[in-house]
């Protein structure tokens, strides 16, 4: 009310007060809105996000997008080269019917790559969600309460850190593959579990570090002074302030999981390629890399197509992750 009264008085002093009032009445920009606009100005991050959205779209609508049934065997049409090759090493010419050619059984490579996107997306996101839930909870408890809980959890993380990741995955997959757990979802479930077991550690340590520094801050002291309970302080004050770090960590966990699936698939330990048309997950890029490796002289595209897809997705997530880090914590910018 006073501002309105002042602006009506025609004097130099009140004119500048009016300016100030105008600035103050602008909608305030929250941290998240700020970060969002920083992210949108990062070309690499936006491009990465678009590529990821594209692959998510492909994964969801695979049955509509794939030109062929990925399981359909076309006898006599094995190892067709891509459509632009007229005379391949197998002496066959590509046809527009099979854009990227066919594999040894005459299955369409493009359709299989499209279906493979499903596994990579699921392997990227689902374990990451589990990892974040487990890692954040344990990291918060560990950092907030300290003491023997903290000590025990940190020794547990030491154990996981001291073991080469891939070795752990290979031991888990070879040991449990034949069990019911290893058969569930064509072996995908076991892969989720293994990824979660290894990767919660990094998130837990990260969050613990955040909590350790945040819990000394004045706003935590203030809310404790007004009688807030521990859980409230953790959920309402510490968690929102750690969210940026957690989001960035997620952006880097996802490509890590996708790569792990690709390596394990390549070693024959990933998804079991399915022949059942009712399955959602029919083949994965990792399994295709393995098939492509053996057929590399006959039809290099069985290897190249999933390799390009893996590289695109992984690079995109990394660009997005870098962008998120710059947007959410500008101090870390190089």
């Amino acid at each position, binding site marked *: 009310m006073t501002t309105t009264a002042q602006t009506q008085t025609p004097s130099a002093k009140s004119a500048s007060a009016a300016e100030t009032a105008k600035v103050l009445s602008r909608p305030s920009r929250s941290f998240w809105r700020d970060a969002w606009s920083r992210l949108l100005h990062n070309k690499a991050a936006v491009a990465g996000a678009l590529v990821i959205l594209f692959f998510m779209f492909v994964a969801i609508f695979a049955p509509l997008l794939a030109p062929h049934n990925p399981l359909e065997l076309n006898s006599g049409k094995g190892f067709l080269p891509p459509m632009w090759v007229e005379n391949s090493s197998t002496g066959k010419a590509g046809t527009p019917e099979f854009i990227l050619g066919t594999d040894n059984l005459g299955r369409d490579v493009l359709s299989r790559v499209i279906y493979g996107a499903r596994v990579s997306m699921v392997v990227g996101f689902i374990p990451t969600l589990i990892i974040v839930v487990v890692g954040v909870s344990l990291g918060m408890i560990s950092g907030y309460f300290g003491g023997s809980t903290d000590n025990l959890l940190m020794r547990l993380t030491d154990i996981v850190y*001291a073991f080469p990741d891939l070795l752990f995955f290979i031991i888990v997959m070879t040991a*449990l593959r034949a069990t019911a757990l290893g058969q569930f979802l064509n072996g995908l479930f076991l892969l989720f579990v293994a990824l979660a077991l290894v990767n919660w550690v990094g998130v837990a340590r990260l969050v613990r570090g955040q909590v350790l520094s945040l819990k000394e801050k004045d706003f935590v002291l203030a809310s404790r002074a007004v009688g807030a309970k521990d859980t409230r302080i953790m959920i309402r004050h510490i968690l929102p302030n750690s969210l940026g770090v957690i989001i960035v960590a997620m952006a880097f966990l996802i490509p890590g999981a996708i790569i792990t699936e690709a*390596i394990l698939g390549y070693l024959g330990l990933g998804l079991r390629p399915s022949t059942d048309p009712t399955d959602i997950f029919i083949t994965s890029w990792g399994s295709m890399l393995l098939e492509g490796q053996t057929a590399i002289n006959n039809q290099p595209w069985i290897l*190249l197509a999933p390799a390009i897809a893996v590289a695109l997705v992984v690079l995109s997530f990394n660009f997005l992750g870098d962008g998120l880090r710059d947007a959410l914590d500008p101090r870390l910018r190089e």
Partner: protein
Amino acid sequence: MTRYIIRRLLQAIPTLIGISILSFILVNAAPGDPITMRTFGDPRMTEEAREILRRQLGLDQPAIVQYFAWMTGLSVRQGDQVAMMTTPGNTCGYIGAINVTVCDGGGGILRGDLGTSIDTKQPVWARIVERMPATLELGITSLLLSLFIGVPLGVLSAVYRGSLFDNLVRFFAVIFRAIPIFWMALILILVFSVVLGWLPTGGRQTVSLTQEFNLGDRIRHIILPAAVLAFGGIAGFSRIMRTETLEVLHTDYIRTAQAKGLSPNNVWFVHAFRNALIPLMTVMGPAIVGVLGGAVVVETIFAWPGMGRLTVNAAFQQDYPVVLGAGMFFAVLTIIGYMLSDIFYAVVDPRVRFD
């Protein structure tokens, strides 16, 4: 300092015990046992013969007894079985009070014995030692490559900040940090071995009857795997060196050096470079650990006869003593790697104090 090292070593003990328990549970969770797997469908094998083999390896015992035997070399059985279990190198005694027979096979992790491979009947140590040179050869080559390429790239990139060179280095650093070594390996094999035919697809040397040492042949074999392992390191080292050199270039003592009229080369390479090296020491530990982990991937893809491939193959063939022994060995190396990096840090930077 000595006290700090001793404390770190003591801290490593519970970690190692944890790893031994965890890995033991994992390999024991596998359905079936190594004997069934190895003799499956063999008409000469009877179920009784399998039972005897399992007994010899202690596989008929509960997991906790097997773990105890693996750790201490002492196997425990119910009842008086002294006559049955005593063999050369296995002394047994019967403890009547609790009705068990305890046999001392002379091994056990705690006595530094990692056990015996089921497949080759060699001690696990011998198999690790046999594979060590190949892993060291690959690891050291790739570390040297990444240091000698990555460090100068980073320093030059900082000195010529904002130039085309700087931008190129940074662009490729981002790409190479993101691209998984596994992917890199596949594509390099495809390009240089399959399409161009310049380099072998894998192995440490060309297989021949005489197996004599041929330096040129060995170099041709190591180029691809070492390059693949080095890419990540080059990217990482160049990034760190760039940031650190930039930071050092803004310090007062550099301004003093410039004010004294020292040549730019002298300022950059004598004053700036040496101080920028400090943080590099702290990442050496993780870098060594990274090379170890990466070696598992690279050795598997390039059929490089090192420890990583040994362990992976043993996992596939369910040769548990080798998996467990080599796994423990990897864990010890990893812990030492992290510890060395903390110690290096304090040695090169006197501002860091151990508490």
